[in-house]
């Protein structure tokens, strides 16, 4: 038994790899969902905006994966993580894998995730790792644009027409059971927090809730019940049925032609 426990014992290398992959998976999957709007935005400006934000997230993910494989040191390429893992190996939050829904659903999720990322990046820009700090500082600048963009739309849709109001309200109600996981932390987080290599999300939970509450109230929306049942398990690789379909589309070409080269 002791050997089995030993092999599972966390090291700085293992924990950091896992932590970076979790962060990257969230951003890759959300970026992919946003990219589905390309050519389908309700107006040209939003089509462009959502495609831009998708690029930012996929870029964040690429940076994080690249650093993760470097830390792993087994010669893997970042694309190996993207194209050759199955859904139980993906550690993204279920919130980001839900289908894009209507514009209201996409915007509601963008607002929750970018406001969360805002606080997260603030903490990550202070940790004891120069490479992470550098990339997070860049992501932080970009996420401010995302937050401003989604918040303005929440106000416009919530305090807009009867239809826009009811759609954005439905969106928040429908995704609410998935927001609890944003603050899930386990031994990976704790191990790294002790070394100042990870952010303690609990420290900004109440600030984040205040920001969400203030914005929804300003938009004349009801804040769903924070104490309702919240789903769990994403960081252990448990997902909704939607992730498999997303991965099938994203990975199909690469797996069919694994040695294909663009150049």
């Amino acid at each position: 038994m002791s050997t089995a426990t030993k092999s599972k014992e966390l090291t700085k290398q293992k924990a950091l790899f896992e932590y970076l992959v979790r962060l990257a998976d969230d951003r890759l999957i959300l970026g992919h969902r946003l990219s589905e709007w390309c050519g389908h935005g309700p107006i040209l400006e939003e089509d462009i905006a959502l495609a831009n934000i998708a690029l930012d997230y996929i870029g964040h993910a690429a940076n994080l994966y690249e650093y993760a494989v470097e830390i792993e040191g087994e010669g893997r390429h970042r694309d190996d993580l993207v194209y050759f893992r199955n859904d139980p190996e993906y550690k993204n939050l279920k919130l980001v894998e839900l289908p894009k829904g209507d514009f209201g659903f996409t915007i509601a999720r963008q607002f929750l995730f970018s406001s969360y990322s805002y606080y997260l990046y603030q903490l990550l820009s202070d940790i004891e790792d120069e490479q992470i700090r550098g990339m997070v500082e860049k992501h932080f600048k970009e996420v401010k644009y995302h937050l401003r963009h989604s918040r303005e739309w929440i106000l416009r849709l919530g305090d807009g027409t009867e239809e826009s109001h009811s759609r954005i309200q439905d969106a928040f109600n429908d995704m609410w059971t998935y927001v609890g996981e944003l603050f899930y932390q386990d031994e990976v987080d704790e191990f790294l927090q002790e070394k100042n290599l990870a952010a303690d999300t609990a420290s900004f939970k109440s600030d984040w809730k205040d920001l969400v509450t203030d914005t929804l109230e300003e938009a004349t929306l009801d804040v769903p019940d924070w104490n309702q049942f919240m789903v769990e398990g994403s960081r252990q690789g448990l997902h909704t049925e939607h992730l498999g379909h997303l991965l099938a589309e994203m990975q199909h070409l690469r797996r069919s032609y694994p040695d294909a080269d663009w150049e």
Partner: protein
Amino acid sequence: MATATTYNKNEIWDLLSEVKDPEIPVLSIIDLGIAREVTVKDGKVIVRITPTYSGCPAMKAIEKDIEKTLKINGIQNFEVKKDFSETWTTDWMSDDAKKKLKDYGIAPPGKTEKDDDFLKTLKGSSRTISCPYCDSTNTELQSEFGSTACKSQYYCHDCDEPFEHFKCI
């Protein structure tokens, strides 16, 4: 035969000024502050670059163009290193580069401002952006996102022209 030893740091820096941003071809990677440093060690040339936006699709093309420029000039032993330890900012853009941008029809970025109060207002810069065509300040933000990650879209109410602004980050 030309080898890396025939070039010194400054000469390589000059070569890099021929590498243009594929999306804004009036600016070189030096104008933009993407090229950070050139070092020559034991005959090996190391070019350190830092990406502008995380997802900028031009980065790959820029890396390739750097490689091509070095090779054309007979430099075989080199490495292009991506570095995230410092964060790219439009403040690294020279005045000359900003003038080139304006002449090209893109309103250049101003100096970055501290935004410690960002969450209180959640507002962007309140500064006025001048139209690159007629210099009017009677302009309006249309969208914070434009044709590339680094630009936003504006409209000039005096000359009735839409124009792009290089975001200030």
